């Protein structure tokens, strides 16, 4: 094992959400979204977190980027406890970890040009990058995701869903992060576009040495981008291991259930003998 500190270390992370109060004099009920979750991610490594809706995987993604304040536990990014940092140092640290969201329609401001959208993390986190340098950085990331430098002058509505997700990825890359947290980044896309975006994730990782925390409900998708997988169920990690190993020999009943639910070409079929569709 490595001696250096891992890129990301999550220790016993517990996160409760307060639900609406039911009675005036009763304490508001709480919902435990994460229950003592621990994981580690080395530099250059990719970890997928899979589970159903409500399993806590998106809460984990948000907590890792200090977008939520946990009830207990620690998150260390590059060896520093993100919840112990003051706002200034936290900002500086955020350069190293960026997020890609699920919905490429909802996550891009429709009234801003692509250049502005892509440069937003740069403007927020690295003050003093302006003029030609800023333009060069925008062009660099747009080209690295397969778009053109002049696309910076266009608006999001001029792009397809797959291209929009490329814009979202470009925005995540502009601060030259070490870690990208991607929350269901391809589940809103068509099959062939999904393949293009997944391939882009793999290319970028090889080229830039990125690490991914890749959140998905689809086990078949994560096989392509991650070497390790953690299966979440009701706020807990119930199984963790190398992707191929978990695929071939799932240990936990919940993992088996998830794997069995994925429809497979050549697998079991419902229904009767075929009817003709020819006119």
């Amino acid at each position, binding site marked *: 094992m490595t001696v250096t500190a891992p890129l990301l270390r999550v220790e016993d992370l517990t996160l409760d959400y307060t639900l609406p109060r039911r009675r005036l004099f009763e304490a508001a009920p709480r919902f435990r979204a994460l229950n003592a979750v621990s994981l580690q991610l080395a530099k250059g490594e990719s970890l997928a977190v899979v589970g159903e809706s409500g399993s806590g995987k998106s809460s984990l993604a948000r907590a890792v980027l200090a977008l939520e304040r946990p009830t207990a536990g620690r998150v260390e990014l590059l060896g520093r406890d993100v919840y112990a940092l003051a706002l200034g140092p936290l900002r500086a640290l955020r350069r190293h970890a960026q997020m890609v969201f699920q919905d490429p329609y909802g996550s891009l401001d429709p009234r801003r040009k692509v250049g502005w959208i892509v440069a937003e993390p740069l403007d927020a986190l690295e003050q003093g990058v302006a003029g030609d340098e800023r333009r060069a950085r925008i062009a660099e990331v747009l080209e690295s995701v397969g778009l053109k430098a002049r696309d910076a002058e266009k608006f999001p509505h001029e792009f397809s869903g797959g291209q929009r997700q490329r814009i979202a990825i470009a925005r995540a890359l502009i601060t030259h992060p070490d870690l990208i947290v991607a929350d269901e980044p391809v589940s809103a896309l*068509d099959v062939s576009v999904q393949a293009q975006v997944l391939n882009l994730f793999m290319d970028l990782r090889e080229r830039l040495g990125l690490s991914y925390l890749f959140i998905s409900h*689809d086990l078949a998708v994560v096989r392509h981008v991650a070497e390790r997988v953690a299966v979440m169920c009701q706020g807990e990690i119930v199984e963790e291991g190398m992707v191929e190993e978990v695929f071939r020999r799932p240990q936990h009943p919940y993992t088996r259930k998830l794997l069995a639910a994925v429809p497979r070409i050549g697998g079991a079929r419902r229904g009767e003998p075929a009817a003709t569709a020819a006119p």
Partner: protein
Amino acid sequence: MTLLSLQDLRVTIDTPDGPATLLDGVSFELAAGQSLGVVGESGCGKSMTALAVMGLLPAAARAQGQILFEGRDLLALDEDALCRVRGRRIAMVFQEPMTALNPVKTIGDQVAEGLRWHLGLGRGAAEARALTLLQRVGLPAPRFSPQLYPHQLSGGQRQRVVIAMALACEPALLIADEPTTALDVTSQAEILDLIAEVTAELGMALMLITHDLAVVWQNTAAMLVMYAGCVVERGATAEVFARMAHPYTRGLLAASPHGLDADLPSGHRLATIPGQVPDPHQRPPGCIFAGRCRRAADACLPRPPAERTLVPGHGVACLFPHDDEAPA
């Protein structure tokens, strides 16, 4: 017996940039009680086909051809007559259950609405029947009271309510347009199970629209592959998967993360289809897929390829179809 028969359906829509062709000569037949998968990517016309059958095309769209349902041409019916078909004989399940349901009405009222409107049931009778329907789709009272509102349910539970509404009048045809795309894999499996059960129980025909080849494989007896408003391959599902004769069908399969062999190493690159779907304002005169096709030749360019029959019941609109076995 043929329940639904589309003959050379063409749909064009007027846009500021001129007329755009959305469906270009779609024909198919669906027998009573049978299941048909329609697969293709966004913009291929699969949802537009469903909307045309439902008589729900956008106002700017013009349809030509015939949509024969139970012997009547739906395109020739007026709105009143269509309203008696819609929900009564043909029902639809949409992709996004939250927007398909009315957020300010209880689920019981929404299931009862079709019963009162189409079947003329009284309030009490409709409520009682709604209760049975909700129980049938796996939302039994008292745990799932008909007094609940859509926001109090999960995505999978909401889709069950939509299915209960669709079943209410026991229609002859159920159209499900990407019914599980908004759901996670375990809810998807449950909803597809439920749709298979209820269609078999009531002898309904099913038209299942999806972009996922694995869902078609698992759930339908026959299938159509659509690309840019045309049917490019059709046949019995097992037959189409065995041959995958059209280059576009093979492209879809290669791009699908569910289509791969379980033994492939992780980190394997997925195949992609180069290029883009042609602009609906300027469709090429020849094969619609030629611009993205590795097998395209000069013969593909002057006119669209006629559909040819490979074996009885398996047709492909391609001059140079694959004739080896499919890679899956």
